[in-house]
């Protein structure tokens, strides 16, 4: 299984290097390491949620509520710290836990209620953004303005640097390391794959697949909480609509990273590479003088070209066969 993945990741790595070279030729300022590292701020939210949505997708599910959880987390931080007056760091932890709770709600309904993941997370998406808007109403500021006035220490979360490396880059690698270790070096990670490949077989093998499935949504919710904290710090105010536009980018980097939407195959290394590729693509094209509204076109082409390659790779076909062919469950 693991031996098959690097081929796709190698391709992503080559795309990334090609991107840097090409954009560097178009606009030499692109090769300025500070600019490249600072650009992480603009896709960090997408990347860290995508790491854990990758888990969800490997189990055969899908989670589209991440963007709304960002907005909810953001509002919770704002209300706890600015309206109620709780210490900012405590507010952050509570807000991340709220994200986890949202994930738990999704996970329980999907794993134990046997409802389709798409339906539940779609409902979750609408529910959490609705709750966020209601909460803003309680805070006494208008939904248009957002809650601001955070302490400098909080703003430094996103804008600070450690040894010259922006915090967002560090967070990217910390979250990546957590996801990587969980997925590849623990039994839990293996169970996630096995659940995705064949839930019945995994269940007979003694794996609590429902717990595994529910837990992936919790992780996804927690990571959305972390993203919400980062984005609130980055933008300096708490608003209900933060993250609303992240839905498609998150799914884009997951599938571009080589994770099968049907489950059972994929990995966070690909997701990490894909999120950097998409992030650099945006800033590179902007620096090349292309207007932002055309960037979707580039991302779409990249995705379709990559997916076409994935489609003709042999192990993809065998995977599809394995997933599509009728399972014979001898009882």
């Amino acid at each position, binding site marked *: 299984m693991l031996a098959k993945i690097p081929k796709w990741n190698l391709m992503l790595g080559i795309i990334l290097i090609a991107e840097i070279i*090409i954009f560097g030729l178009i606009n030499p300022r692109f090769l300025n390491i500070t600019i490249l590292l600072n650009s992480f701020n603009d896709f960090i939210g997408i990347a860290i949620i995508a790491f854990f949505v990758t888990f969800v997708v490997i189990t055969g599910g899908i989670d589209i509520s991440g963007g709304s959880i960002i907005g909810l987390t953001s509002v919770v931080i704002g209300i706890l710290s600015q309206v109620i007056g709780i210490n900012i760091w405590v507010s952050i932890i509570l807000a991340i836990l709220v994200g986890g709770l949202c994930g738990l709600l999704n996970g329980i309904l999907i794993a134990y209620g046997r409802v389709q993941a798409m339906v539940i997370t779609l409902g979750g998406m609408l529910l959490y953004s609705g709750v966020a808007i209601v909460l803003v109403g309680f805070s006494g500021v208008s939904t*248009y303005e957002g809650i601001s006035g955070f302490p400098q220490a909080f703003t430094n979360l996103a804008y600070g640097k450690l040894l010259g490396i922006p915090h967002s880059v560090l967070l990217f690698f910390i979250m990546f390391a957590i996801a990587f270790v969980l997925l590849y070096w623990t039994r839990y990670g293996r169970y996630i794959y096995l659940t995705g490949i064949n839930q019945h077989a995994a269940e007979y093998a003694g794996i609590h697949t429902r717990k595994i499935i529910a837990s992936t949504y919790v992780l996804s919710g927690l990571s959305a909480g972390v993203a919400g904290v980062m984005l609130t710090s980055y*933008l*300096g105010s708490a608003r209900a609509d933060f993250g609303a536009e992240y839905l498609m980018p998150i799914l884009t980097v997951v599938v571009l990273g080589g994770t099968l939407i049907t489950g059972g195959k994929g990995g966070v290394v690909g997701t990490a590479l894909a999120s950097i590729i998409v992030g650099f693509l*945006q800033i590179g094209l902007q620096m090349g003088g292309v207007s932002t509204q055309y960037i979707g076109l580039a991302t779409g082409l*990249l995705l379709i070209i990559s997916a076409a390659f994935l489609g003709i790779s042999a192990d993809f076909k065998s995977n599809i066969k394995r997933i599509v062919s009728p399972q014979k469950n001898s009882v």
Partner: protein
Amino acid sequence: MRKFNILKTLFGILLLVFLLAACNTNDDGATKDNSDGGDSSGNEAASDIEVVFIPKMTGNAFFESGNNGAQAMAEEIGFKVKYDGAPEGTVANQVQIINSAVSSGADAIAISSVTSDGLNQALQNALDAGVKVVTWDSDVDPEYRTAYINQGTPEILGAMLVDMAAEQMDDPNAEQQVAWFYSSPTVPDQNSWVDYAETYIAEKYPNWEIVTKQFGEGDEQLSLQIGESIIDSYPDLDAVIAPDSTALPAMAQAAENKGLTAEDIIITGFASPNSMRQFIENGTILNHGLWDVTDQGALAVYIAYYLAQGNELKVGDTVDVPNIGEVTVEPNSVQGYDYEAEDSGIIVLPERIVFTKHNTNDFDF
């Protein structure tokens, strides 16, 4: 086989990048026509200056018209304007666009902000990097910009709304039922106009009664439903004032659907002439107003360019702008701000336009 695939991928990406680079409409041809302003003490050639012109969102007629004006001004003077906005008007998108403008070495940005405070940190970074900041249409915290190109103060626009309705009435001093209909209870600019308009009504037309305030959230379908419900709920209504580019066309459409004309109910407000022309021509409405958004875009990028050349703008200064005329930098207090600094002010567009069937065909935006 795999090597072949990788080659193909590389080729694909190369193709894609060049394809997109070709979308770029900026003409990099060096224009020799250095700025005509004899008073400009600028030390940079015009063609070296790049202004990034940022709308709230792309694909909206109002902002596209602003961009048309901006591009025309850039072409005439010979500096570069890059139009850069995202299809969704969100804070994160605008921050990303500001950051990339700074990274790519732009000299100035002219932005219509979606938020009053969410861009502060990004704009501070831009200012620290030496990028000049101008706002237009919708302002940010005055600390973070040099000039705000304002379509009109609340006093000007509020009074204009009331007068456009009053001039259609047989006797504006008699009792009249009036409804407000605009985008949302939280949008800063429209609410400031309506607040002033209400004080103006209380002074000038004390017999008017404001029967309702409705909000369409900038959504075309919702606005149409609300427009129809206003007509149904208030049968004796005399006038609806809709200072919003989504609400006004929807209100006119609702009246047309109900078979009403300007004889039955007065509908006026702010929207672009292209979106209202059909209603003026078929008699559903008699007048509506707006400022010339192409002029606003042109003025915004010119002021940004003027600052990027190294010129200073202080409160009380005047600038002679080609095709627009002389504009003055007013203090922030004209918009009701407390923040006063020498290098932060407001430039009010010289004129606003009332469109009627006599002049609507003279405009194309």
